[in-house]
């Protein structure tokens, strides 16, 4: 029974295995991912409020600024870089079509939240979409175009 300041972990990111890598215990998962060149995961607040760092861990959306890298041991992670399946291709096209990106800072988190909305298979009203993305800040678009893109994605895919 002993505690350490770094740990060795194994996990997979977008299908690629990371075997027995050493991470400092105080490092959060977003910083680890970014240190590996996966800079699509953005960091805004590092306190759970802005949603830019949202990733998928073992099938559910989580804030990667509020998960320690050491806690990712054994897990399977998807980041925005791994959004290449048919469903996410359609979602990305709808974001482009509706101009739902401006600076793009919020986009990885918005796409991740959209992925979770789509996989819930629920038909959501515009108000419900707004409530679902209430945990993701966007400082550019005014949200209207993002709601448009998500609405069209739900109609197209579900």
């Amino acid at each position, binding site marked *: *029974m*002993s*505690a*350490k*300041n770094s*740990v060795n972990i194994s996990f997979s990111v977008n299908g690629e295995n990371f075997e027995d890598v050493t991470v*400092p*215990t*105080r490092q*959060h998962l977003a*910083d680890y991912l970014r240190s590996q060149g996966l800079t699509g995961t953005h960091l805004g607040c*590092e*306190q*759970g409020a802005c*949603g830019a760092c*949202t990733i998928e861990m073992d099938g*559910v*959306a*989580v*804030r990667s*600024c*509020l*998960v*320690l890298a*050491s*806690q990712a*041991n054994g897990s399977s992670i998807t980041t925005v870089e791994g959004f290449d399946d048919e469903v996410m291709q359609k979602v990305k096209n709808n974001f482009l079509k509706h101009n739902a990106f401006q600076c793009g800072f919020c986009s990885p988190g918005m796409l*991740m*939240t959209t992925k*979770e909305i789509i996989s819930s298979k629920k038909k959501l009203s515009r108000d419900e979409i707004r*409530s*679902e993305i*209430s*945990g*993701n800040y966007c400082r550019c678009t005014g949200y209207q175009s993002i709601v448009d893109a998500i609405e069209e994605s739900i109609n197209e895919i579900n």
Partner: protein
Amino acid sequence: MKAPDFSYFEAQNIQDAIKYKSEDDEAVILAGGQSLLPALNMRLSSPSCLIDISKINNLNEIKIEGDFINIGALATHSDVMNNDLINEKLPCLVDILKMVAHAAIRNKGTHGGSIAYGDPAAELPAFAVAMDAEIVLSGLSGQRIVNAKDFYRGLFETDLKSDEILIAIRYPFLSHNQHLIFDEVCRRHGDYAMAGLMARVELDKSKINNLDLVYFATGDKPNIAQNTAKLVIDDRYDYEKLKKSLASEIDFAGDLNSSSEMKLHLATILINKILNKLER
């Protein structure tokens, strides 16, 4: 900001975690991390070690035990919201959890973590007090059960001893004439409330027989307003009278979002909102 340095210990079972915690006063338990990690990232605390209990098996079970619904400490807010038993027996909890943070945070944040942390602005501690829940703690000398009312002592101060871990919360069933009604005022969906109220109402036809009012985001801990509840039973809603009564029994503490006067006002009108919900 980035968290200060700490060591990390992944507990395999409850005994491991208790033993570790009892040997190191500065070590803290890590459950979902959705309150602890923001605090560390902001450097509001600097523990020596995080004892990660999140991988311990069977601590997230939700089941009926005698006259109680037992929610294991590690059940996440999402687990609770999606659980059939909770949706059937305690649907008000699902509605309450919709107001707790956002989906990605609810996927990690745990029921036990929220109860153990005792954030005065959080919904669940007030819910547990209003429901007269029992909190199950485990430490070096075994298990003990504390009533939620006695668990909260002050600002982020609970009855949890340094060698103890919260392992479950037990909620008694509501009978057919009892209702748990809640409402809160917040600036944005998912934000912590500016003031909120959990009311346990016992009805005799449409007359209120018994009423417990428990506030959150008003003071240092879940605030019980006993005298005010009696006034509500006697003459329903009288803004000035209730406000005066609330001011005399709760020590309202302002925060960044609202002054203590604002909270007193909101606490008063929340009673009206609850009564309106009851009539619907």
